[in-house]
């Protein structure tokens, strides 16, 4: 066990897998010599050689395409997209190719590959360094989408993703790389060191894909969250003294429906929270699922707490971010309804 922040935990996942399996290779913009703009791939080129970890041209499309080709060859590529906001040039290769390859070849070419990308806001990155596009991937059959919320999970989920036989989109909430940000932005920053989930085993372990975690137990209301929002949810519940159960989804496709159902049937109320824009976001899917499956248990409508349907503005960061105030108001309303 070592205390790690999320960057270190992710780096460790890479190392563990690159040591175990020579088929694991890393590529992306600035990931090689320099080790990535967020340092997640630091030292990998030195340890494993240039042919196992290398810089790519600035072509997200090309990075996705050659990663697919490598996976078709039989390697296990881990491709970094420098910011999730820049994944769109590679969208066609992900949606039309990676997602459909096993299906259209009737199993001849399953693609075991991971697309990693720092994502989400909270760092004053403006509209092109803050986006949360997970819903766009959730809608596409054939890929899995994972979003960790702490160092332990980050490493365990990334290893599980690398070992998974299918393409996995792995979004890393960059605001919590260095500490568990809970949305109280006026308070001093806390590092991971003080958080229990920063105790990370040095070796190999997995956190299974498709399994949620109950991040906080409660009886009054269920909050469905992932990534940074898990911390916002816990802190808000605590600040407001609400007995909320916080579910950390961890994987959004396939989503852990059992854990969700169990919790909502228990609490009878549900608030869904994410940073992405609201309309047709993944919160809509969660809301739909919950009311389809727990309709007769619900005592109030399922509420959505999300980013606004606008680009992510630079100076108005905290007016955009779905923080404790927005969530708190929604919780109050849900409990009153």
């Amino acid at each position, binding site marked *: 066990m070592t205390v790690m922040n999320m960057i270190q935990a992710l780096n460790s996942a890479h190392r563990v897998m690159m040591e175990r399996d020579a088929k694991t290779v890393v590529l992306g913009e600035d990931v090689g010599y320099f080790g990535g703009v967020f340092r997640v791939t630091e030292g990998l080129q030195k340890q494993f050689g240039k042919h196992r970890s290398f810089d*790519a041209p600035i072509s997200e499309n*090309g990075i996705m*395409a050659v990663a*697919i080709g*490598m996976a078709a060859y039989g390697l296990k590529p881990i491709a970094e997209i420098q910011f999730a906001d820049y994944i769109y040039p590679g969208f*066609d290769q992900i949606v039309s190719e990676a997602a459909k390859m096993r*299906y259209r070849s009737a199993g001849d070419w399953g693609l075991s590959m991971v697309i990693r990308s720092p994502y989400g806001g909270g760092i004053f990155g403006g509209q092109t360094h803050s986006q949360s596009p997970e819903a766009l991937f959730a809608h596409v059959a054939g890929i899995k989408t994972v979003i960790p919320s702490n160092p332990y999970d980050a490493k365990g989920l990334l290893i599980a993703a690398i070992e998974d036989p299918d393409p996995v989109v792995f979004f890393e909430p960059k605001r919590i790389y260095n500490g568990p940000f809970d949305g109280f932005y006026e308070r001093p920053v806390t590092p991971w060191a003080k958080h229990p989930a920063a105790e990370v085993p040095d070796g190999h372990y997995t956190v299974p894909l498709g399994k949620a975690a109950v991040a906080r137990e409660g009886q009054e209301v269920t909050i469905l969250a992932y990534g940074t929002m898990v911390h916002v949810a816990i802190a808000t519940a605590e600040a407001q003294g609400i007995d909320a159960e916080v579910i950390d989804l961890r994987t959004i496709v396939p989503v852990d*429906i059992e854990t969700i159902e169990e919790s909502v049937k228990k609490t009878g109320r549900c608030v869904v929270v994410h940073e992405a824009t609201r309309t047709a976001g993944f919160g809509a899917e969660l809301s739909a699922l919950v009311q389809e499956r727990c309709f007769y248990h619900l005592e109030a409508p399922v509420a959505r707490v999300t980013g606004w349907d606008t680009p992510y503005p630079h100076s108005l960061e905290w007016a955009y971010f779905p923080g404790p105030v927005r969530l708190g108001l929604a919780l109050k309303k849900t409990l009153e309804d």
Partner: protein
Amino acid sequence: MDMERRNRPALELYVPEPEARPGDEVDFSHIQVPPAGSVPRPDIAVSTESIRDLPYTLIRVLDEEGRATGPWDPRLDADTLRRMLRDMMMVRVFDDRMYRAQRQGKTSFYMKATGEEAIAVAGTHALDREDMCFPTYRQQGILVARDYPLVTMMCQIYSNRGDPLKGRQLPIMYSSREHGFFTISGNLATQFPQAVGWAMGSAISGDSRIASGYIGDGSTAEGDFHAACTFAGVYRAPVILNIVNNQWAISTFSGIAGGQLTTFAARALGYGIPGLRVDGNDALAVYAATRWAADRARSDLGPTLIEFFTYRVEGHSTSDDPTAYRPKGAGEKWPLGDPVARLRQHLTGLGEWDQDRDRQLLEQLDAEVRAAQKKAEKLGTLQSDPYAEIPTMFEDVYAELPWHLREQQAQALAEWEAKRK
């Protein structure tokens, strides 16, 4: 508007047009055909700078009389030549048969490769059997050259219960890992940089297999083309990047892809990789150029971009009628001739072929195709008895069925039951 501005001339948009449209005479007078054998053949280790003129020439081996000439002559033995001729003829017979099957309503769609048979067939024979091809929908010749069963091809076309792709794909979107034939995508150009990635994977692994990617002239405009050339050049990927310039993209002539401005082979110059321009209707030139590129790739010298200059003699697909946008009979007047006829003439000139053998072969191919069709149709056609195993519709989306697909699978089965009632 400032003073200077007012004196500026008005601009005008230029939109390229082909030489001839319906009603015009077929016009190929702008096509320059250098004599066979006139292009030098550099060593594979040549520096890229010293062969910057190659993209502007046209590598040809067979002359007007069908004689092989010049440094690119691959000097193949007669058996190989006959095999190539057989495969090209097979593609043509097969195409005609399946085109007709579509017209008879037995399936939804078909695409022929008429006039372009040499490219896939001779190219494949110049590769190792284990090299991986990333074809478009017009390289059925690869499967034929690698002895893929005709019946299975047809079952795919019919989407019947013999279809190895379980009715999932549009006709002719074959896939066979075993035959080094990558699963065809309906999305143009996507497989071109994937071929580069596969080749990089081979190099990373210390393997010796190379990859061969294909793209159409029209599809070179996609960003994927650029990604393929960029990555292939930068990492010296052991890959052959083939552009099949048949001068049409559905109704759009190659000028809309930039074909009036320079050759497609010249694209190579911008990436600092060798670019060859080859008579695509000359099976020997196709073979020789492919072999040169393969040898470079195998020697870690990196990629080669090859433009195969040819002509799409027929419609784009069964959904297309080319007389709506180009003069009738353009295909027959194509100055580089018919690839099958040219190889046949060559073999005949060598004394290794004659009319009798040709007639016999044709009859035999025809019989083979008919027999295969009979077998395939016993397994159903899209019209009569398509592939219909509902549960499989949910398989292979992921390696394992997640809960939501299991639920949907059950729902789909219940629905099918309800429909029967």
